[in-house]
């Protein structure tokens, strides 16, 4: 990680970067988000296969530095979120310095060490092990046998009847305690006031009733339709283990199938929602 | 380049020279034609007056055969064949009932998708540029009256080929090989083909008008892309000359023959000896065998 630290030091020293959003290791050997303000801080920066968090989430949550840009350590997949934010006028490319990390896959749970079996599903289908759009690219690629997706979860799930699907989600959403960890962990949930906090009218019951939970989780997924970049942080953050990625992946499929679109690939790419095509499909409209 | 090939009856009989010259020319342009095996009548002239369904089913069968051979496109040099194939394809596309009937007859689902090309369309596909490069002989003395007749360009909403009232695609080809297409008035007048057998009177009258207008605008050859046109203007010309002594003769060439000449192919290979009005004297006078750079 020398390279990472050197680059960071240089950036901070020269004040090219006001601070750097990166990872560090705590005393339990868990890799965690860490903001380096000084060159000493920079010494603490690290990157490894436990560097799970998508740090892009902090770009819209932290105050802008007094001087210099925001430096950020990012995996290829995380950068999609950064590009997404650029597409949605949340940040300017020139205001950030991306230190892209060559990635050999990350672990499901930061409390355990990495091995092929416990790598995240997104890693098994990763196309961005070498980051795009980065100012620097750091670290070495080791050959990484993609653990193939064992089964197509979506297809399996869609085989169920509408009633069965409803039952499934009823059971899942029952658990939801409306802690909004999913929202907080999501790099693309940057609204100052989330719709769920809007009363007058209260579109979504804020009380954790199954009904309100349905509304919340449906709308959350809908607001991320054509925007979710699949970092899966929401699901990881969920304390009651609702399979949120199922919803997100479904919407991702729709974006792919109907519009051949993925969010966060190119900064100047027009967004899906907010644009239209006169030939969009409408076979479902009477 | 590869094309499917539907010769049709004429090119095996009265228009043998058309078939010959086409193949010779394509050889030079290294384009191969894959003949549809076991092709049958296209339903022109007889079928489509006797039985509508038959006139659609016959071409449909040929197109199916082409599809089985995995052909993207089929060249039908004979304008009548071209016309029938196109019309049939069109009807099957837009007439649900008809399609079902025909599918029943052919015992097979019909899927349009084979592109049908007439002679000119073929050359356009090959690319006029490519043809240009194959030119060896100077034809600048040749003043050609391009005669389209009816089947090549009509009905326009089905064929969608060139301007039905004032076509010009043949002139383009003729001029790129260095011959001079003339401005004349009868390029799409009726030659009477449909009465070719039963009422030669009419045919001779109509054909004579066409020949005369060409001669009047001092053409030294009439160029055609249709066996029917050819037989009427060439074969019938004999009688016309007999009937009207003051009438001048004018040779009738297939577009492919003219192309062949410009490529320096020999008369025999192009079947120039198979015409009633012998073009050779004219050609010997007009065609200068010298290297050209176009």
């Amino acid at each position, binding site marked *: 990680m020398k390279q990472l630290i050197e680059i960071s030091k240089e950036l901070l020293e020269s004040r090219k970067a006001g601070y750097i959003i990166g990872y560090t290791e705590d005393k339990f050997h868990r890799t965690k988000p860490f903001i380096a303000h000084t060159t000493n801080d920079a010494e603490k920066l690290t990157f490894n296969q436990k560097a799970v968090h998508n740090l892009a989430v902090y770009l819209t949550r932290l105050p802008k530095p007094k001087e210099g840009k925001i430096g950020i350590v990012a995996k290829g997949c995380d950068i999609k979120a950064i590009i997404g934010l650029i597409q949605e*006028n949340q940040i300017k490319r020139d205001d950030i310095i991306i230190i892209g990390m060559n990635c050999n896959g990350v672990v499901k749970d930061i409390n355990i060490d990495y091995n092929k079996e416990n790598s995240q599903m997104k890693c098994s289908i990763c196309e961005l092990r070498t980051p795009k759009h980065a100012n620097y690219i750091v670290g070495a690629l080791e050959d990484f046998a993609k653990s193939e997706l064992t089964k197509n979860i979506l297809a399996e799930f869609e085989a169920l009847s509408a009633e069965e699907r409803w039952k499934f989600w009823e059971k899942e959403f029952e658990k939801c305690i409306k802690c909004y960890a999913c929202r907080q962990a999501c790099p693309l949930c940057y*609204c*100052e*006031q989330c719709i769920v906090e809007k009363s007058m*009218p209260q579109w979504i019951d804020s009380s954790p009733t199954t009904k309100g939970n349905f509304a919340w989780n449906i709308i959350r997924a809908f607001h991320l339709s054509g925007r979710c970049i699949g970092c899966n942080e929401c699901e990881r953050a969920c304390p009651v283990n609702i399979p949120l990625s199922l919803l997100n992946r479904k919407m991702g499929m729709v974006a792919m199938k109907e519009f051949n679109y993925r969010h966060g690939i190119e900064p100047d790419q027009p967004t899906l929602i*907010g644009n239209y095509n006169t030939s969009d499909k409408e076979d479902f409209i009477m | 380049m590869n094309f499917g090939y539907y010769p049709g009856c004429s090119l095996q009989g009265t228009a043998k020279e058309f078939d010959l010259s086409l193949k010779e020319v394509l050889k030079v342009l290294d384009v191969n034609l894959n003949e549809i095996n076991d092709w049958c009548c296209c339903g022109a002239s007889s079928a489509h007056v006797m039985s509508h369904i038959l006139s659609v089913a016959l071409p449909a069968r040929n197109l199916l055969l082409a599809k089985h051979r995995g052909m993207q496109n089929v060249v039908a040099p004979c304008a009548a064949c071209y016309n029938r194939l196109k019309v049939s394809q069109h009807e099957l596309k837009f007439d649900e009932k008809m399609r079902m009937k025909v599918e029943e007859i052919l015992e097979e689902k019909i899927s349009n998708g084979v592109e049908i090309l007439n002679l000119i369309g073929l050359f356009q596909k090959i690319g006029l540029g490519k043809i240009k490069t194959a030119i060896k002989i100077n034809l600048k003395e040749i003043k050609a009256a391009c005669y389209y007749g009816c089947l090549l360009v009509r009905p326009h909403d089905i064929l969608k080929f060139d301007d039905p*009232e*004032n076509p010009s695609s043949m002139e383009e080809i003729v001029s790129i090989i260095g011959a001079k297409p003339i*401005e004349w*008035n009868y390029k799409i007048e009726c030659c009477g083909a449909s009465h070719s057998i039963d009422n030669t009177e009419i045919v001779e009258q109509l054909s004579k008008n066409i020949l005369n207008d060409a001669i009047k605008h001092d053409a030294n050859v009439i160029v055609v892309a249709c066996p029917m046109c050819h037989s009427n203007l060439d074969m019938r010309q004999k009688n016309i000359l007999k009937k009207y002594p003051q009438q001048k003769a004018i040779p009738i060439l297939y577009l492919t023959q003219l192309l062949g000449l410009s490529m320096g192919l020999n008369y025999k290979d192009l079947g120039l000896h198979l015409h009633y009005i012998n073009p050779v004297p004219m050609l010997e006078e007009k065609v200068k065998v010298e290297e050209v750079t176009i």
Partner: protein
Amino acid sequence: MRIGVFTCHCGENIGRTVDCPAVSKACADFPGVVHSEDYKYMCSDPGQNLIKQAIKEKNLNAVVVGSCSPHMHEKTFRKACSDAGINPFQVEIANLREHCSWIHDDVPSATLKAIDMMRMMVEKVKFNGPLTPIRVPVTKRALVIGGGISGIQASLDIANAGYEVILVEKEPSIGGHMSQLSETFPTLDCSQCILTPRMVEVYQHSKIKLMSYSEVENVEGFIGNFSVTIRKKARSVKDELCTGCGLCVQKCPIKKVALSEFDEGLATRPAMYVPFPQAVPNIPVIDRTICTYFKNGKCQMCKKVCGREAIDFEQQDELVKEEVGSIIIATGYKLYTIDKKPDDSPIHGYGEYGYGKYKDVVSGLQFERIASASGPTSGEMLRPSDKKVPKKIVFIQCVGSRDEAKGFSYCSKICCMYTAKHAMLYKHKVHDGEAYVFYMDIRAGGKMYEEFVRRAIEEDGVKYIRGRVSRIYQDDGKIIVKGEDTIAGVKVEIDADMAVLATAMMAQTEAPKLAQTLGVPYDKYGFINEVHPKLRPVETSSGGIFLAGACNSPRDIPDSVAMASAAAAKALVLFGSDMLEREPVVAKVNEATCAGCLYCKKVCAYNAVEAKEIKDRNGNLIKVVAYVNSGLCQGCGTCNATCPSKSVELLGFKDDQIYAQINAFAEV
């Protein structure tokens, strides 16, 4: 909240299938309702008075009326209520007639539905809140685009009403196609003679600012407040100095190079030219493409002879900004020229007619020039090729019109008439000549039109042949016209001396571009669309922009003039008030919660949403938010639905209003 509910029987219309008294009674128990009654005709004066009365007595602050469709009487009831002191936007209509009584038979269920509908509206109105109509000032000046007869008429009408007009014409002179015509049907009076005075009037009118040889470059703003950029093309002549003596034109040595646009290419014009003698303004233009000075810096003859030193070779295009409140489009038409010019025309058939190939096959407008006293033959009937008098002439109608195969499917409307006129003019000048007309149908709808055509046939002996022409070709000096007579069912072959093609009227080539600049829709032919074909024929879908003449569809002179006056009237209605009132149904942004993702900006069809920077005292950027320009906002609410945080709301259809409706239906 003190809500009054009023249920209308609409005579029997609602009463028959909806038990109005029951509805009224049910409504009385809705929370917030302090008054409920039903009446035979709520829209009638007594009905409205009931409402006003109730408002006063029970001091209501919101009203729901159960009646016919809001599209019928919403305005009526809003008016009534605001007269009685309620904000008009605190009024809601439940559509008990079109959406209930008229579509159901079963009284009980219809009544239940009616009650639901009323409840939904009662709940909605609770959240309406007062709104004030948006008032925008009106700039009382008009821009008229196009100086043909339509533009001239519209300009004069508006100017004579006392308002300023800017008349923009792209050619060096106004007058348009009408100035090219010889005589006009059905009266056969000379076109120039009736037009020229109008042109002069325009020129001298104190309220009309004439900008010839100019084009509209850009238009911004909205009804009542357009700001227009006009390109004044370089004339190379200082118009303020030029007296129009015409010496420069006489002396210009480049005489024979350019074909005269005005004479439809039948004559030539100098490099320094005025389109025609009666041109307005009578100021020449240098055609820089052919002028020797501009080509090789020599000559300058015009400069030498000009006593006023008005010639200015260095002159540049200048961009002029104008503020106007209304725009009238009167760009007219162009005639379809058949000689293959695929580039500037969507169709290019009819090569078989030999237009452009044979000199003696001419278009309708060319024939006008030949017949015109001011034309190249000074009115003598001579054919272009050899200047001989054509003894046999053939007129062919519907060339390009009513022809789906090769032309446009529409009818050009004027050809039947002007062909009859042409034939007549010909016969009047060549008494022993033969005139043939090939036609499909004769469409002579209009005052004295049919009579006119009959006159051509019966008195002047023009031979009308019903049928199309297959081809025209030249045969030793003759123009051979081959066609068929579909009535006699025979082939016809006429060896004429000349043929005149009544070619289709088509949209100006630049029309679509202009339409885009103005943001008005146009049809597939490029004609500008009216907003309603029957009831709003001179209005476009964008407020304040009106239509006149052939830019909308083929039209003859009387129709164009009528339309021009109508458009002028529309503009004047606009100018009648100082302030413009618009329904306040517009979007509003809550800047506190807006995250500035600007998806709303992306979905807005009117560019009404812009990014707005919020800065602190020291000018440091705090954040970027969306801002809605209520002048441009049309109130579709797409932004509202798109906004993930609901930070933009559409007044009149706010989330809480709709929520209340959804709620009210369910809680039965």
